[in-house]
């Protein structure tokens, strides 16, 4: 090939992190190429379903006027504690959630990601699909100066590469930034079905007054057989997203198949009526990196920055991921723009990316919840014990048996101590607090 393909910046991956990085750089005038291996941006992507608008505001301030592919604003959200025959609900529904735009929206990635990538195209990003980045081009000092792809004459040069390749971070590993494949202890496997149901029916079942209301529920306990993990139910415009995620190692230890757990969840007597008659339109599975702060890959090297799932940027406790990815992508993009101004693409300079992330909620949150995965890993009984106890206790509390209330309270205490010693409870609570406080 006579002339080298040269750009100001290369982005690997057309998900939220990569697209945000590309948009940020294109808006600053950098010639940016985004290389995506799927048939279209988002073809390989799958998530439970909530997007946070603060991240869209940051990356694409006029996103509302660009016809975003969103499903429903989240106006009713919280946790359900599910035991084998009961549910205890901790949810909030508030008029405050009803502002426009809302804080968060449910979305389907097969629609949202192509829309987001199209905004990048409109802003001047060259998006190339069906092309896999296979490795790196380096200068005589070993610094990354471009990428190789799986196409003939497929080398692309740029002084800076942003890797947003997703959870299966082979390129990050190739650079030695991630030390190994994700260990099964720190990666969740999430499965989900998208069930079609008429708009009015969705609204009737979840008590919504129209298309400007929606539900996002995380379900603990029996949704995952009491194992460490969560189930979820989100309303889409004309459908329901339902799924569950468990740490991969738990699936292996307990010899469970994720689709069986989901089938069981869907048939739970409390859940089933919500899904009656709905038609399965889409199903899929995806890995979620729950590597945590302490095992994060190195985020930069000469000519390279890593963002999103590839860097383990997931806050599983708050089911946040896309927003961390988008903000990290934006900051990586800004750092690349700065690097161009200074003509300095060294690791020494790109360290600024990590410093800025540390100032943002991204690394602050990841740091705070650094022990969360360890907590779940070390207290596998947690969900089952306390979710079932809470349901039993609530049942006693909300019913009358001609029993003195004092005796009822004693019985509730006994319900707990039958499951776990006082010391055990104390240890669990300390572990939980440590998980929450970092």
């Amino acid at each position, binding site marked *: 090939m006579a002339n080298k393909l040269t750009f100001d910046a290369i982005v690997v991956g057309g998900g939220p992190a990569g697209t945000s990085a590309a948009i940020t750089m294109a808006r600053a005038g950098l010639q940016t*190429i985004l290389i995506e291996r799927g048939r279209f941006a988002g073809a390989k992507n799958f998530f439970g379903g909530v997007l946070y608008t603060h991240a869209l505001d940051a990356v694409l301030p006029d996103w509302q006027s660009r016809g975003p592919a969103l499903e429903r604003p989240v106006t009713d959200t919280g946790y359900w504690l599910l035991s084998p025959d009961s549910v205890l609900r901790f949810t909030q529904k508030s008029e405050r959630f009803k502002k426009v735009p809302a804080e968060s929206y449910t979305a389907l990635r097969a629609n949202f990601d192509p829309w987001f990538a199209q905004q990048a195209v409109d802003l001047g990003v*060259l998006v*190339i699909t069906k092309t896999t980045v296979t490795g790196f081009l380096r200068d005589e000092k070993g610094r990354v100066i471009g990428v190789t*792809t*799986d196409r*003939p004459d497929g080398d*692309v040069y740029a002084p800076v590469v942003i890797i947003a390749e997703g959870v299966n971070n082979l390129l990050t590993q190739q650079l030695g930034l991630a030390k190994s494949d994700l260990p099964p202890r720190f990666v969740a496997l999430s499965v989900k079905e998208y069930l079609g149901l008429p708009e009015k029916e969705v609204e009737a079942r979840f008590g919504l007054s129209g298309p400007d209301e929606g539900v996002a529920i995380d379900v603990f306990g029996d949704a995952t057989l009491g194992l460490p993990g969560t189930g979820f139910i989100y309303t889409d415009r004309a459908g329901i997203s339902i799924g569950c995620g468990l740490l991969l190692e738990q699936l292996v230890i307990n010899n469970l198949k994720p689709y069986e757990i989901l089938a069981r969840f869907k048939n739970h007597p409390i859940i089933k009526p919500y899904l009656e008659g709905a038609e399965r339109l889409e199903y899929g599975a995806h890995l979620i990196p729950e590597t945590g702060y302490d095992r994060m890959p190195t985020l930069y090297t000469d000519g390279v920055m890593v963002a999103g799932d590839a860097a383990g940027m997931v806050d599983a406790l708050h089911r946040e991921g896309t927003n961390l990815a988008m903000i990290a992508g934006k900051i990586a993009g800004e750092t690349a723009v700065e690097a161009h101004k200074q003509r300095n693409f060294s690791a020494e300079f790109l360290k600024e990316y990590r410093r800025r992330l540390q100032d943002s909620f991204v690394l602050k949150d990841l740091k705070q919840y650094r022990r969360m995965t360890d907590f779940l890993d070390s207290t596998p009984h947690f969900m089952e014990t306390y979710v079932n106890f809470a349901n039993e206790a609530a049942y006693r509390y909300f019913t009358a048996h001609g029993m003195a209330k004092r005796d009822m309270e004693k019985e509730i205490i006994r319900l707990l101590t039958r499951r776990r010693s006082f010391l055990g409870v104390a240890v669990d609570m300390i572990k939980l607090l440590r998980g929450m406080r970092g």
Partner: protein
Amino acid sequence: MHTVVAIKQVPDTTNVRINPETGTLIREGVPAIINPYDLHAVELAVRLKERFGGKVTVITMGPPKAAEALIECVEQGADRCILITDRKFAAADTLATSYVLARAIEALQEEGPIDLYLFGLQAIDGDTAQVGPGVATRLNVPLITYALHIESIDPEARVAVVHRKTERGIEVLRTRLPALLTVLKEIAPVQRAPLANMIRAARYKPEVWSSTDPVAFDQAQIGIRGSPTVVGRAYTPAPRQAGDVIRVSELGLQECVRRALQNIQASGAIDLASIASAKRPTDGNGGEHS
């Protein structure tokens, strides 16, 4: 060498389902692809361009979404793509479609000479294989269907030798150019497109022709007005019944063979009496098998 390729965007029929009530294809949610035969036609055109120079023009008639298919052709190496689209073209059968494509090709001929017309053998959604021949007839050029291989082609002498697959074997045909070929997949393997093509395609916008501009198509010959074909009924054939299972483990070999022969006799598929009277092999290898 200037090659014009006509393509069609089709639903990926490996995924398609039929609505049992209406008997029509459920196209919703089914990904659209380039008709697989057409992709090989484009590939052949690109290989010829690499060998002889010149250019590849791709045309299609279809909804605006068919632009995706044209962009894929640019990825594979097409130079120019034309999307012929208008609501007035809707519901066209093979007669109306071949009229539109032939008229469009005539308009392209006015811009400069064309050496070869390539069509896929047939579209996988309709399986008629009529549009290519229809266009050849309208253009009054030689037609070779089921083209398998181009043995030689000489754009200067305006002649080509083409292998054509038939039920009895392969015909080797010499034709003058321009000619129209409908091609099999073997005509040219699809190669992975170089990155530079992907970049050109990502920026490419196909030309759009309507029913009036730049070509004034005869409105009586296009779309539903120009389509005499009527679909009487479409249905899914009833699934075949499973055959009888005769188990050697239950009945023993003798009894199984006897019953099998009985069934065959009853079906009338083979005249067992005539087989029995035929001479048995005597080469010594026709003995019993265990």
